[in-house]
């Protein structure tokens, strides 16, 4: 019997695959430091949203029923939306690599296919943790008061995991469209309605019934709810956290399989 597809084991085992992914994640992060404007752009917009919702719209949004004031309500939504938007850079980065030929070099080397994708998403994960921490500082400046350190760490971790799972959706989109500009637009447009039609910025009860139904059926609402409970200490964590984690698991499994398959096809 002959093996038809090279397994990671053939190139030195799982340890090497992880090591390669880390090496490539390092490359990705170095790009970020070379393009500080990218980091600025991915934080300016959410900072504006914080200010906009905190001071312009916030006064007319009633969160009394949830037991927390608006700024504490808002920041969970900001965290989740910010990482969702930041995840788009995964697909853009991959499309860029594909267009530049560097992927050909990687593919002519004995490194596992998934390491190239994992390196990209892991690097983006680190970047997203950084962005969430910046947003936390901004939030604290405008009145966010995390309930406990453990809760805060949990909130950041869950948000980052959410962003990581969305990175794999973005990876699949980027590999499917292959063009940098298209990846940028295609990765972004659907996130707008998805993140706004949720409990991110307003309590679900204020939405019309049909929109509530939609909002409840997306991964955004349970994730926002779980992050909010961890940040504020109000409400029960179990149900939204479970649903959120299940969503992420499904997204990760489905999109990583789709992405790796797509990667093999296009390259």
């Amino acid at each position, binding site marked *: 019997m002959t093996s038809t597809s090279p397994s990671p084991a053939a190139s030195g085992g799982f340890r090497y695959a992880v090591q390669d992914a880390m090496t490539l994640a390092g490359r990705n992060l170095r790009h970020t430091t070379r393009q500080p404007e990218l980091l600025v752009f991915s934080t300016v917009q959410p900072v504006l949203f914080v200010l906009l919702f905190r001071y312009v719209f916030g006064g007319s949004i009633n969160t009394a029923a949830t037991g927390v004031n608006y700024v504490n309500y808002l920041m969970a939504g900001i965290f989740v939306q910010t990482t969702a938007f930041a995840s788009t850079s995964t697909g853009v980065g991959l499309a860029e690599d594909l267009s530049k030929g560097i*992927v050909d*070099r990687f593919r002519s080397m004995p490194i596992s296919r998934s390491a190239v994708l994992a390196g990209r998403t892991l690097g983006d994960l680190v970047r997203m943790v950084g962005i969430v921490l910046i947003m936390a500082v901004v939030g604290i400046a405008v009145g966010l008061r995390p309930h406990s350190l453990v809760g805060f760490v949990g909130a950041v971790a869950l948000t980052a995991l959410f962003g990581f799972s969305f990175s794999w959706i973005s990876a699949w989109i980027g590999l499917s469209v292959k063009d940098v500009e298209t990846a940028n637009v295609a990765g972004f447009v659907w996130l707008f309605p998805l993140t706004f039609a949720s409990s991110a910025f307003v309590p679900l009860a204020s939405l019309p019934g049909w929109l509530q139904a939609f909002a409840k059926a997306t991964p955004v609402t349970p994730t926002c709810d779980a992050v909010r409970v961890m940040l504020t200490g109000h409400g029960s964590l179990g149900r939204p956290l479970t649903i959120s984690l299940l969503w992420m698991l499904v997204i990760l499994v489905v999109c990583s399989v789709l992405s790796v398959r797509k990667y093999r096809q296009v390259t």
Partner: protein
Amino acid sequence: MSFSLPEGTVLGLLGPNGAGKTTAVRVLATLLRPDSGTATVLGLDVVRQAEQVRRVIGLAGQYAAVDEKLTGRENLRLVGRLYHLPTAEISSRADALLERFELSDAADRVVKTYSGGMRRRLDLAASLVNRPKVLFLDEPTTGLDPRSRLSLWEVIEDLVRDGTTLLLTTQYLEEADRLADRIAVVDGGTVIAEGTSDELKDKVGGSVLIARPSSPASLEALCEVFGRLRSGEVKRLPSGEVSVPATGIALVAKAARALTTAGVEVSELGLRRPTLDDVFLTLTGHLAEATEPAAPTKKGRR
């Protein structure tokens, strides 16, 4: 397409754009699965043993596959880490390659600021990090200015002296002539001739007498004079020259006398060994620069 390349030698795949050269290299470098046929590198099947193949090959090409946002040094270190070289070796190997390719001064600059020639040299350096036994160079000098091309040729000649097995694709006859031990002429996805540069030239025939009319108006008269030499078929070359098979130096004197008598002015007259241009023209009926669609099927042995 079928060709083979003995270890330690240089094979030049010569052909126009779209002849299938790049496709052949991509198959051998495990980037593309062959639609049909088989290909092996050092006895390893490029499909079933792709992983092992990747460990012994290096690839550099017309689209310099380097990371623009990293520095030259970082690029080479990244490649070294991905080949799992020992940490100490990664730095020394990167430094040595930067030195060898005259990139030491630019080592810590971001590649985006490099010239085309520098990028190609870095790309070539990156393909050598793991000391490959077989190196694929896909049109390494396409699009480079003559000076960068010359300096890249010198580097490649060094590699060849070190005994690297090299498969080179090119659309430049001069490049194949200078760098390759053997040349496979590729057109329309098949190898239409293979041999050393001399063997290929012999295929076209022996030396020819060449003359260039001093003005296009005297072309007809020139052909007529050459025809009267009764030395063989008179050919009008795309370069504007006229040729006729020549057996010896005596024909040059005879032609000179005949031209003077007929009053035909020429700017050049002399014997010439056939060039690869002549080879290409004879074999394909068109010049190397012409383009044809790629044929997808591929068969190659190392």
